[in-house]
């Protein structure tokens, strides 16, 4: 029980500032990235008309997320953003499943990961808005319906980032706390595998999809 909430940090002094690295989270993130790179190479390395099992899974991802992006963002822009959306989902889903393997942790259990991904989505959405609508129309959106709404509109934009990242963080963190506490109370007998299946596979997949879907919708709302 005591290991909960402890984070292994590497603190480096650099030009009068403390740079803090959450080593464990970084290692876990790199494990996920390595998985994805291997998956990508084995899915697309040997393309054939009769696809192998890995290629089929890869094609499934690509097809699903291209159609989702095109339906949400629109034909033309959707094609452009679909690789990002597909990669985001694959990264999140693998991250959320990683905790099922003993001694590995979900990188999404750390707020830094989810906040980083949320900020990334926010920047992309605003960049898209400026590029598609022009700077003037983009800025005008902040003083609608009338000028007094400016501070609330800005807070509303920030609240989007906060809500999207805390949603993923809270769910994954909550799942892992429940698994830890129940394992502790039952001496790891009988129940933990079922909880892992529910919170890791099922809830993890749903939350990865919700995060991806919300990022897509933020981009779509900004683009139009």
């Amino acid at each position, binding site marked *: *029980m005591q290991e*909960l*909430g402890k984070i292994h940090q590497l603190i480096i002094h650099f030009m009068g500032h403390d740079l803090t690295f959450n080593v464990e989270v970084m290692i876990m993130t790199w494990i996920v990235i390595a998985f994805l790179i291997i998956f990508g190479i084995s899915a697309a390395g040997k393309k054939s008309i009769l696809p192998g099992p890995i290629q089929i899974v890869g094609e499934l991802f690509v097809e699903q997320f291209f159609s*989702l992006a095109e*339906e949400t963002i629109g034909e033309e822009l959707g094609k452009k953003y679909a690789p990002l959306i597909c990669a985001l989902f694959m990264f999140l889903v693998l991250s959320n499943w990683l905790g099922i393997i003993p001694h590995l942790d979900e990188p999404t259990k750390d707020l830094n990961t989810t906040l980083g991904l949320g900020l990334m989505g926010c920047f992309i959405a605003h960049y898209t808005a400026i590029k598609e609508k022009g700077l003037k129309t983009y800025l005008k959106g902040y003083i609608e319906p009338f000028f007094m709404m400016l501070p*609330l509109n800005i*807070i*509303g934009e920030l*609240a989007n980032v*906060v*809500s999207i990242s*805390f*949603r993923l963080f*809270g*769910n994954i*963190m*909550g*799942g892992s*706390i*429940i698994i830890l*506490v*129940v394992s502790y*109370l039952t001496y790891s007998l009988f129940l933990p595998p079922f909880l892992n299946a*529910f919170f890791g596979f*099922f*809830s993890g997949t*749903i939350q990865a*999809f*919700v995060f991806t*879907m*919300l990022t897509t*919708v933020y981009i779509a*709302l900004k683009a139009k």
Partner: protein
Amino acid sequence: MDIQSWIRVSSVVGAGVSMGFGAIGSAVGEGYAAGCANEAMSRRPDMYNDIARTMLLGQAVAESAAIFSLLIAMLLLFTGGSSTSPLAPFGLIAAGICMGIGAIGSGIGSGLPAGAATIGIARQPASKSQITTTMLIGAAITQTSAIYSLVTSFLLIFMDYSARPFAPFWAALLGAGISTGIAAIGSGVGEGFVAQTGVESVARNPTAMSRVVNVMMLSMAVAETTSIYGLLIAMILLFKTYPATASLASAAALLGAGICMGIGAIGPGIGEGLTGQQAIRWIGRNEEATPIITRTMLVGQAVSESTGIYSLVIAFIMIFVV
């Protein structure tokens, strides 16, 4: 009394509050599911087994909010936290309040899709597995606001606050518990409304399942936002560093921030749920209109959420300015 007895007193009271309030929601939700199952059985008495199985599965998910409360109550009774600081009693009581009240919404909410699923199976037996999947997805997302309460209660019990100043931090602990706990009510119920019509629409029009489920998840995620604000305020209250102060006003401001965000989040949660409920219902009937319905739904939910953002702003002012 010495501090040990105060810790014992507060853990016992906290356990009572946690399990007492925590038992409300799930019982209501499960009762609703069983009621709907009766309706379904009167329509299709020959499908007794399928309907009863779906009802029990849905009730099992709805029960999990009460099980979280049970978990916190057990932890409070048997471990009683690890700290011996004079702040510990506040943390333990706040943990009980947070989990107990936080389980109400999710318990009620996740009973609604279970009820809709039993009726849906009676109406459309061929798409039994799709209806069950939709119900499970909906009920699982509805549980998330109870999970936020669980995270906060767990932090309140096991956090190390030995180095914190007593004077404002006792209020921060109570405020954190109240903020997450009460904020979870609205979102839990609201998400339940959305999940209910999601299941209903899949039963009405199984070919539209992927669109209905996509928009359902989106709408539930938006309805959940205000309970995330509650969690956010709780996290800020717990992890901000405070200077020690004797002024009661600055302590009261922290408690006030928790109350403001907690109660302010109830309305937007339910309101956004009602928006999503109608949107999903009409996507099930008119699948082609999905893009325009989704757009209207998101705009409407954003407006409904603005009152939650007012609460967030006032809570921020109380924490950082007052």
